[in-house]
Structures are given as C-alpha cells and as structure tokens.
C-alpha cells in the first residue's frame, strides 16, 4: 500500500493503518531496534510500541516519509528501553560502541538547559552531512542513526572494517570542528 494511503488510514482512525505499517515497515523497524537493544523480545516490544506511538501522533502528524518517521520512533523507543533497563553498561547491541564514539564529539558536560540551541545544531549537522561525499554521509548515518555494526557497514561498502573505522573517526573529528567553528560548544 502506498505511504499516503497508510497515513490516510491513521487519519481516518482505521486500525488497518497498524497492520499495513507492520506489513510494510515491520522488518525495517525491527532491524533498527535489534541494532540498539540486541534482544529479540525487546526489539519486538519496541516495534509494537512504535505502532502505538504512531497511532497517537498521526494525526496531527502527516509524515511525508513514513518509513523514517516510523524508524525514528523505533530508534527513540529502543534507546529509551536500553537506558531504562540500564543495558548500556552491559553492552547491549552496538549502542555502547556508538555512544563511546559519539563521546569524542561532545564534552560530556551536563547542559540540559540549552534546549534552544538544539534545532540550530540539527540544522548545522544536516548542512555538514550534505557537504560530505555521498558514501561518507551514508556511512555516518548508518552508524549513528541506524546503529549498524562496523562489520555490516564494511560489507555494504565492500571495504575493510579498519577503513570504515578510520573513515568514521575522521568524520567525527570534522563534525566536532565544524560545530565548534560555528560557535557550538557542545
């Protein structure tokens, strides 16, 4: 079924919206959840919660890219679950590695009050990513959005794991400098 029709079902409060979402994007969302929680039962729980969350947010939301809209919900729910279950310390999925790598970009300081800047930071990160060659941009997103393992990324790009690790490290350093030069002391 076409995405706009599925969104239409949500808007009409037709429960087939969930069936169709699961049929079309269940596997996609499950793979995101697995990358983060590294547990089939927990991943399934996150995917099921994704449909409930989507049901509650559409309407008013009218996503143009339903796939990533749902994937983002799964990502957030999975990350919440990992934190809630305190699985980070126990090395759940790829998430602990991903977070360790991201710690190279940030200071680690608690600055939860700086909410206003968040939108600007996202915009700058988008701009930064657009300036990267396509394969590097994809590599970065697969790692830090989808939490894909280094070996999976290497297989996808037909490169060595070392080459992917080095490439990601350079992008992280560049992003850090990029944000710093624009006044974001993160």
């Amino acid at each position, binding site marked *: 079924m076409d995405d706009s029709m599925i969104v239409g079902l949500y808007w009409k409060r037709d429960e087939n919206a969930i069936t169709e979402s699961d049929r079309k994007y269940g596997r996609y969302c499950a793979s995101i959840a697995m990358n983060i929680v590294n547990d089939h039962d927990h991943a399934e729980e996150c995917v099921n919660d994704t449909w409930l969350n989507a049901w509650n947010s559409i309407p008013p939301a009218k996503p143009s890219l339903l796939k990533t809209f749902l994937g983002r919900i799964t*990502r957030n729910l999975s*990350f919440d679950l990992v934190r809630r279950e305190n699985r980070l310390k126990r090395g759940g999925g790829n998430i602990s590695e991903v977070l360790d790598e991201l710690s190279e970009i940030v200071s680690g300081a608690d600055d939860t009050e700086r909410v206003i800047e968040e939108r600007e930071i996202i915009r700058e990160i988008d701009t930064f990513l657009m300036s990267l060659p396509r394969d*590097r941009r994809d590599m970065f997103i697969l790692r830090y959005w989808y939490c894909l393992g280094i070996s999976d990324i290497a297989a996808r790009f037909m490169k060595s794991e070392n080459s992917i690790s080095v490439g990601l490290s350079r992008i992280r350093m560049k992003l850090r400098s990029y944000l710093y030069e624009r006044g974001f002391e993160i």
Partner: protein
Amino acid sequence: MKKEKMFEILGKIDDKSVNEAYETKKTNRPAVMRWVAAAACLVLLAGAAFGISSIFRKRNTGVSEETLGLTMYLADYPEKTGEGMSSEAFMEGEGYYDWWKQYIEKIQKSEHLQSDLQGFYQKMMEKLVASDDENTVCSPINTYIAFSMLAEVTDGNTRQQLLDVLGVPDIGTLRKNVALIWNGNYADTPVLKSLLANSIWMREGLKYNEKTLKTLCENYYASSFIGDTGSKEMAEALRKWIDDNTGGLLTEYTKDIGMDPDTVMEIVSTLYFKAGWTEPFYSKFTDEETFHGSKGDTTVNMMHKTYMTGVYKSSKFTAVGIPLTDSGEMHFILPKEDIDISELVSDPEIFKSLKFDNEDERWSAPLVNLSLPRFRVSKKYDLKDIMKELRLTDVFAPDRSDFTPLTSDTENLYVSKADHAAMIEIDEEGVTGAAYTDIAVAEGAAEPDDEIDLVFDRPFMFIVTGKDGSILFSGIVRNID
C-alpha cells in the same frame, strides 16, 4: 553535552538523508554489451535550384527541413536516449542499463587508441594551451577530427603530412580510428551530453567525388551541404549550424563568421559537452575568496568539497581528478610555486596524472579538502601558423596541394582559413564546454589514507577526459575576472 544527548540529536537529522543511507547499496555496473548502433547515411539529392540547405539535426532544432537548396549527404546521428526524462528518472529506469551496456562497449573499442593519440594531443596542447599569458582552452579531440577530415579530402604528400601529424600509418586506419573515437565519445542522455558533429560545405557548380562524401558521412558522421559560398545565406546557415551544434556557447566567435566567395569547401567539426560531477559541490560552501592570478589578485567564488580520491604528486605539480557522471574526469593540475605553468603543458608526465596507477608511488589516495574556483574560459585561435609549425605545409601551397579526392574540377586549392574556438565553464553542478574547428579551402593564384588541502587559488591547468580517455578539452586558467 552528554553523548546520549548527541545520539538523540542525531536521531532528528534530515529524513531524506536517513532514507538514502538505508537504501544505499554498492553495485557494479555490468560491462557487457548488446549491440552498437551503426551509423547510417541518408542520401538526399533534392532541390533543383541551388542555394543553401539548412537541414539540422533533430537534437538541436527539432525537425526542421527547410530545404533551400541541395544537401548531398545527411549524416544520421544516434538517437537521444531517455528523451524528456529527468536525470534521476533516467538513471533509475531500466533503459539506463541498456544504454550503459552499449556505451561501455563503444568505449572499450576506443580506449585502446588513446596511447596512439597522446602524441597528437600533446602537440596541440603545446601549441594552443601554452601559447600566451592569457587564459587558454582548446579541444584536442575536436582538432583531431577536423584534421582527419582534411586528410580524407586530400591525397599524395598533402595527405601524408596530415597522417604524420595525426600519427597514423594510412588513411584506412584513420577512418577506422575516427569512427571508434566518435562513437566512444558520443552520448546524448539526460545525464550526459557529449555531442560531436561534422559537416562539409561546398561551392555549387563543381563536380564532387561522391565516394569521398559518402566516406565522410559514414566514417566521420559529416553531412555535406552545397550552395553559393559567397552568399550571406550560406554564411548564415554555416553560423547557425555551428551555433546549434555548440549549444550557442561560442556565439562571441561565430557572430562574425563569414564565407569568402573564393571558398570551394569548408570543413567544420563541433563538440558540445555537458556533464555533472558525480558528487556536486554544495553551494552553501562556496565562498568569496582571493585568486592570485598572473595579473594580480581577484575575488572569486571558491567552491569547496572533501572527498577521497587519487592524487598524483610529481616534482613539478600536484594533480587531482574529479569524476563526471557517466563520463571521464576533469583533472586539475597545480604547479609547484617555482614552476612556470606553461612548462607543464609539454611535460609528458601530465599524461601519467590522468590515469590512476596503483603501482606508481607518485599516486596516493588521501582525503582531499579541495578548493576550486568557479570559472569560464574561452579562446579563439588561428590554426594556420600552428599547422605550419607542425609541418603541414602542402595544404597551404596552391601549387603543391592535392585535393583530388574531393574534386578534380578545379585546381590550386589551398587552406585559406583554419579557426579553432573553445570554451569551458565549471560550477557546483559540473562542466559545460563547446568547441569548433573550421577549415576553409579556397581557390586562388599560385601560393590516501592521509588528508591534504588542495587549493587552486593560483594559475592552474585543466584537462577534461572522456570515458575512453580522449582529451576533450584542455587549458590554463591564469586569471579569473
């Protein structure tokens, strides 16, 4: 900021990028081929009244068969592929792979010729690109095809001199080579325009050798037109033909184009090229920066991007290539501070920098932070003196030249005009270029894994290669206004 917060922020980046990243899959394009479109010729013997024929190719003017006179042969060019489609739709459609297979097969047939052509390319670049202290641009492939056509209409020592300059043993080899090069570089798709066209314009009232005109049509894709060479109408038709086949990019030179009443025939070869970078520059990163030209500093629009690529470093220069979608590359060559850029043109090492060689330690594959100015360069040359320097003397000597393969109706023919003009322009999206060579024959009295910054903020050389390695354009940028 804590790392968990950064993870959450990254979750909110642009949906489109996120989706594209998930969809990305590395695929190898198939290198197998199904068939090659053969060139065909239409023989048109229409028009009782002599005048000018203005039949233009469909690709430029739509179907316009406003026959005012006589067209001897009209070359049949390959059909457009993916007409009316957007670049994205074309590349995602099934037709793309059919086209690609045919294209690759043609390239495989012409790329092995490139080492033989290198001598000619280098001679022309030495004569044209390094000729003065101005910006220069020429199209070596365009002059090669024009000289080849001139060889086809000559004989004896006149032809031999041309064959020597072109570096081929005989006319049969030349015919075969030109057809292969022409096909290996011709592409007309929504993504790539590499359009070559040839024509011969002849004076009415003379008897021409039909076999030669047919050969020009079949092997050189040259259409033949007959008319009153002294008339304004024929000059206008010639100008329009060149403008149509160069995308109107050289009108600064063609606007005054004329045809002398003494002209017996005029050979014209054109090239129009438009290709996008495989990874466009992001316009948001284009800044106004200083270019240190030979005539002083100017402010230019400097484009920036970072990508991993092969970099060639010699004792005299550093070279980097930027790939063009479905085509070759545009190579940028930055001389060392103490090296005169004109010297580089005659350095055979330049050709080594055009093709990555894993065995050669001068090549590395670092992450390059490239800064490249937007520029447009155009130039017109009188080729006569250059041809003489290349020892093409007989074509200029009415008492020695031999144009009998074209016509025996008149004697004392000689080359009275040999012009070459070219332009090139680059921006964030890609490269656009055009070139023509116009040779007139008249009748007369006897006569890494590292990271480097590469900043092109001072004079540099460029070379645009086709997918088969042909040198489509080359030049030097010394100043940018």
